[in-house]
């Protein structure tokens, strides 16, 4: 066939569709799309062997813009569709795009069970802390007291932190990034892509129409270094424009503290070293209250454990190996029979 592509020679173009992209001009979704389209060719997976699944929301329009197989399903249930797809054909690389409403409000249960089962799919949650598509109601990640179309008196809900939620659900891979930071986002996308099991990646995404500037206080160029911390496995948890601040454990109170590092502060050895296999540390990092603490970005947690689809595949293979491919006639005859 003429359209056979060499998987090692894929380019960004191979992942772009000819569909008009229908997000609002200026929406953070554009840069996420661009980054994904940039990273995908590196994976050596042909577009035809990749499926993007989504629910409903602005973010869930994502599959339409990827030149791969795509399934824009119903609100909140993408993890279940993705699970079915992955089980039916484990050869496929299955990706999911969801929003803070789609994934954490109506779809909280599907997401939670997908993560705990460790189905081998990569999940991008676009967190804009608002319902974009339905024009501006608060979401489970909106701040307490947030005034929106549906909460003129301020929301009465305590928000959820997506990464803490994922850790509570026993996710095997939990990471965070920001729409505007191309390099960081690409790195984390690569890590997610390579993870075997459910990879959960929360991306702070600006909705410039209904929640503009939600993340400006830590993502703007001038504050970024002071207000975020980039965690890397095996590296000390340092941040600040001059890497002069660090996270230190107060063993008395059993709590993290931000400390100056250097002559006037703690010694570099006292700074905690990031260990992405440590669930406690990951949980702590996910829950650090802002703005007292910086926002943790990067791979907070990553461990390997059996995947749901892998286990099912093995069980099926083992059953076939043991019993041979099932004999239908024998099966129908089952238990006690008699002949007439």
């Amino acid at each position: 066939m003429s359209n056979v592509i060499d998987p090692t020679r894929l380019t960004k173009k191979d992942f772009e569709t000819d569909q008009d992209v229908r997000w609002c001009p200026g929406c953070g979704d554009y840069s996420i799309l661009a980054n994904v389209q940039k990273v995908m060719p590196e994976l050596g997976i042909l577009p035809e062997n990749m499926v993007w699944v989504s629910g409903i929301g602005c973010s869930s329009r994502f599959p339409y813009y990827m030149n791969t197989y795509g399934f824009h399903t119903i609100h909140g249930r993408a993890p279940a569709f993705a699970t079915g797809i992955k089980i039916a054909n484990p050869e496929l690389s299955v990706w999911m795009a969801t929003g803070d409403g789609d994934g954490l409000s109506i779809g909280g249960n599907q997401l939670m069970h997908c993560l705990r089962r460790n189905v081998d799919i990569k999940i991008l949650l676009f967190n804009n802390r608002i319902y974009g598509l339905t024009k501006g109601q608060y979401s489970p990640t909106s701040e307490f007291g947030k005034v929106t179309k549906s909460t003129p008196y301020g929301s009465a809900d305590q928000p959820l932190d997506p990464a803490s939620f994922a850790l509570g659900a026993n996710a095997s891979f939990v990471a965070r990034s920001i729409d505007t930071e191309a390099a960081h986002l690409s790195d984390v996308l690569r890590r997610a892509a390579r993870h075997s099991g459910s990879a959960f990646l929360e991306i702070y995404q600006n909705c410039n129409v209904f929640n503009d500037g939600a993340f400006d206080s830590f993502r703007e160029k001038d504050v970024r270094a002071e207000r975020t911390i980039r965690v890397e496995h095996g590296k000390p948890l340092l941040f600040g424009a001059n890497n002069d601040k660090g996270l230190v454990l107060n063993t008395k109170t059993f709590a993290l503290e931000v400390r100056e590092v250097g002559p006037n502060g703690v010694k570099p050895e006292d700074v905690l070293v990031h260990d992405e296999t440590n669930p406690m540390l990951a949980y702590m990092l996910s829950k650090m209250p802002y703005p007292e603490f910086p926002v943790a970005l990067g791979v907070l947690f990553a461990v390997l454990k059996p995947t749901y689809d892998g286990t099912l595949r093995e069980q099926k293979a083992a059953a076939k190996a043991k019993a041979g491919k099932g004999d239908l006639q024998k099966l129908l005859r089952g238990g006690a029979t008699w002949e007439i």
Partner: protein
Amino acid sequence: MASSQIVPTPQTPSQQVVRAAVVRFVGDSGDGMQITGDQFTVAAALARNDLATFPDFPAEIRAPAGTTYGVSGFQIHFAADHVYTPGDAPDVLVAMNPAALKTNLRDLKKGGILIVNSGAFNAANLKKAGYGEKNPLEDGSLEGYALLSIDITKQTQNAVKDSGLSNKEANRCKNFWTLGLMFWIYARPLEPTIQYIEQKYGKRAELVQANIAALKAGHAYGETTEVFQNRYQVPPAPVEPGVYRNISGNAATALGLVAAAELANREMVLGAYPITPASDVLHELSKLKSFGVTTVQAEDEIAAVCAAIGASYAGNLGVTTTSGPGMALKTEAIGLAIAVELPLVIIDVQRGGPSTGLPTKTEQADLLQAVYGRNSEAPLCVLSASTPGECFYMAIEAVRLAVSYMTPVILLTDGYLANGAEPWKIPNVADLPKIELKFRTDPVGFHPFVRDEKTLARAWAIPGTPGLVHRIGGLEKDYDSGHISYAPENHERMCRVRAAKIAGIAEDVPEQAIEVGNESGKLLVLGWGSTYGAIREAVERSRARGLDVSHAHVRYLNPFPKNLGDLLRRFDRVLVPELNLGQLVKMIRSQYLIPAESLPKVQGKPFRIEELEDKIRKMLES
């Protein structure tokens, strides 16, 4: 045909031939009535009787002993002629305790044999059963029946006393004692049950020995005591030659699905969330990994159906099984499957409602939900099965139509079919027709909603196929390109083509046949689903009495078989008995504008043949 009367007459035991009998075993959940019933069934089957069975479980897992709501029952109808139902009223009722007697006596035929375990009729049990201080065995209230009051508890204890079992374990052998007695009455051999006991308790020799001892003791009791005036013999039924097994509706459904997967040469993914009375289909299928079946016990019904749709999207057969409340939860996702036109088989094992309702009881009240219960114009195909064995064939049919028409298909069964059982002639796999199924691979002229001219099915192009990369979703699609489209005329065109596709299935299914009776006449009884047996038998009996009545049974509920309207119009009147408040009748009246009449029943139980006969008689007399 009718089950005959078994009125004991004062003579020495002799083998009396009867054409049919209905026996019901009832006792505490812990009394082993289901095992007793199963073994009695196997014996009848091996004797080549035709038969039908129905177990009746309590809703509670293990209700406290002796309570009325903890009573567990098993009824079998076996005969020398064709059998269509487990029977209206038992000829023999075996009641293991007062609660069982209390809740079942009113069903026993006048003059029927009533065997009770008098050992369980102590003050505590009598009170729990609501008899208060009175003992029905002693107050003369059972006079109308052939009462055999035996202290089965004590008899069993005596029989097994050498086995070294604890008192509690010894008591558990009561059911085999009872079975032994029943085997004597119906002149059945003990060997198959002995083999069963050996298999089941093989690991514990003392249990094997004790249960066999109990079985034999019960049998000997019949032989040696003189309380029995009669033994009965039910001759073999004239059934088609072949290899048979007993099969329940749920087991048949599971086997049908696996068979269909094999016939279509596809692997299957079942997405299911446990729910009574559908769970057994999941249990059965979860054993069949070597057949390429993967079962996903999902976190809820929504995830279950979504996983099945995902599997279909990726080229497997996506199936989901559930019951009423679960169906309600799946409707949004089924709407998506309709919109994206993917094959999906949905099995709804109906149960009593509304809401949680009567979870362990049967009903046929999800029909309108199946046909209409989705937002907007969301047509799909609805089938039903009429007998436990037919579940096998209708499951295959559901798969065939789903993949041929790229559509969800709902197969309606119910609690009565699911748990009821009948002898089933095992089909020869080689004789089952293959299911044609082709994935699109040709990129020329491809778009995801390009249609087959005849079936109107869209192309099934699965991920992994080179050159066919595309996106689908729940938004409306352009007829000519498959892209998202909000254009007004296009939307109407798409709504109409989806409707036409489903309507077109009528061309691809058997025409409606008359089950029993003439092709035209005074009265047609039109049924669907598990009422089959009762209607058929009632119509046969009525015809035997000279009444002009026929029976037709609809398996294809949406669309209806194309000749159904014509067929109905050939009758003066049409009666539609249903285990609901009148659902099929609504569809019939609306579609054909004929004054079909409803015979509704919502009691969590099937029709009695008599009820139907009465109604038929009244209609033809009036």
